[in-house]
């Protein structure tokens, strides 16, 4: 396939950024080193090394089956890598289970909506707030007495415009609302790293801006790392500060959106734009 031909674009730039990051007072850092996973003979993610910086929204693009979601699963701990490591704030978190990585600060919104279907919208968010507050084994008080948790959950629901539906079972929500709830769960965790996996997939046109505005709002806090897997190029173009391209599990391009989108290999192979036209 084409991946063999592609240059590791933006490699030099990455190092430059990495040195910059060390100037501040202990900024957040997330890095994958030679991250690899094999399923039998198939290499789904192939030696991906990439460092993510706070205050920067990195879009991960690539054709279907490129390994984007698998890469996410490796970072958030749903899958264990065959090789390579993941570092959060310089500490190796490769050996941590998914719940411990969440506690370490990795927040994940899933591509296929992944909620507690028969619990109410409010209960869904409350569970995330509760997890963030480390209220795990409190079994002597009724949950109703935890007004603090309930109020925080309600505030988050208002933020994602689901306040009016808090009593409804999650399964009864429209697809768009379920996606919003998915994002609300991640926000409730107050992570250091936000990982959005196609947050607007399957949403109707008028619902998309709600989620995009939320992401844009999150971006204003420059101490966080935001990762976004997305197919829609207009979304990527408007939000991303940096794009990395995965193809057949390999990192094939990395750089500023304009550069990456303009590079002929991306134009032709991944964005479906004929090589002549330049998108900026």
């Amino acid at each position: 396939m084409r991946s063999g031909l592609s240059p590791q674009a933006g490699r030099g730039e990455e190092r430059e950024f990495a040195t910059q990051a060390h100037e501040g007072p202990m900024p957040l850092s997330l890095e994958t080193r030679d991250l690899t996973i094999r399923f039998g003979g198939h290499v789904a993610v192939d030696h991906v090394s990439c460092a993510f910086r706070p205050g920067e929204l990195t879009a991960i693009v690539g054709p279907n089956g490129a390994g984007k979601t698998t890469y996410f699963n490796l970072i958030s701990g749903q899958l264990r890598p065959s090789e390579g490591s993941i570092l959060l704030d310089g500490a190796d978190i490769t050996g941590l289970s998914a719940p411990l990585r969440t506690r370490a600060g990795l927040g994940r919104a899933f591509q296929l909506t992944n909620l507690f279907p028969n619990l109410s919208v409010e209960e869904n968010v409350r569970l995330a707030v509760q997890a963030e507050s480390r209220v795990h084994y409190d079994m002597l008080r009724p949950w109703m007495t935890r007004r603090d948790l309930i109020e925080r959950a309600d505030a988050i629901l208002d933020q994602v415009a689901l306040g009016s539906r808090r009593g409804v079972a999650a399964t009864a929500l429209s697809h768009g609302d379920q996606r919003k709830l998915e994002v609300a769960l991640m926000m409730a965790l107050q992570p250091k790293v936000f990982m959005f996996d196609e947050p607007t997939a399957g949403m109707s046109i008028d619902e998309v801006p709600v989620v995009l505005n939320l992401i844009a709002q999150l971006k204003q806090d420059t101490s966080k790392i935001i990762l976004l897997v997305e197919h829609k190029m207009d979304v990527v173009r408007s939000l991303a500060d940096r794009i990395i391209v995965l193809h057949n599990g390999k990192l094939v391009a990395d750089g500023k959106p304009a550069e990456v989108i303009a590079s002929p290999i991306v134009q032709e192979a991944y964005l479906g734009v004929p090589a002549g036209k330049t998108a900026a």
Partner: protein
Amino acid sequence: MMILSGDPPRSRLLAVLLIVIVAMLVLTPWLFPGAKAMNVAVKICIFAVLVASYDLLLGYTGTVSFAHTMFYGIGSYAVAIALYAMGPSWAAIGTGIVVGLPMAMLLALAIGLFSLRVAAIFFAMITLAVASAFQVLASQMSWLTGGEDGRTFRLPELLRPGTVLIDKSAFGFEINGRTLTYYLVFVVSALLILALLRVVNSPFGRVLQAIRENPFRAEALGYRTVFHLTYANCIAATVAACAGVLNALWLRYVGPDTSLAFSIMLDILLMVVIGGMGTIYGAIIGAGIFIIAQNYLQTLMGAASSAAADAGLPLLPGLLHPDRWLLWLGLLFIASVYFFPTGVVGRLRRPKAGAA
């Protein structure tokens, strides 16, 4: 409201049913002083606890366990062996409790940590194996357990039927040690059920529901689900052992049939399904319906059969013959599971959704 931990019955009919059942249980010694009625009432109390603790596992976490009778048996045997060996004293009862409850809890902890981290079916199989092994062990170690014959023992003076506390002349009815034991069982059962209601409505209980709904997502939120499931398993086992203690105290006997038989496990499963999983209240309803049907259906059918025969109806006397009561009990269960797939409580709580 707080005594119910903010989880009221949420259905008027259910509330009425529960009040009727509880009132009947309170009044049984006055209304139906016969031995059979008292036995049935005690069995309802004990099984309500046993089924409610099983509901914590099956209904709230979605974990299938076949070892619940084993924990019930551990409680029964612990207190029985202590009373048998140490003689009828309160210290013996205390020893039985102090040995039995932690033993049930530790065994549940071991089984949980060993097998809850893998597939649910593996946990079910392990519990089945351990429970079977325990049953064999209990009947083989006859020097300790009395084997298949079990152990008969005496209770402390205060709880014996012969002990008259208040004479019949005072109120028109007698309060004796048996009545006292009855109320002991009733009060402890009520407290245990309220405690379970508290656990399932606590923040911890919500996490259990989250694990039942979507274990993958619960982990992604940062919950280490193995520990939650293991805790739930330990609580369920301890409460089951408490029910076992009450059972032994009431029967003044322990044996494989009354506290370890696999048929008890099947009864628990039926009761939790009939009552409604994941509700706790379903345990009271399920135990009430099941045990009353089990004990009185035959009598009822006998009456119906002879009434039909007297009326000269064809076929009916034969169909309703008391010997066929197990057939009708079976049909009753099939019908209840078919018409109330979410159990009686589930049906009562959502009448409109059912009608639509």
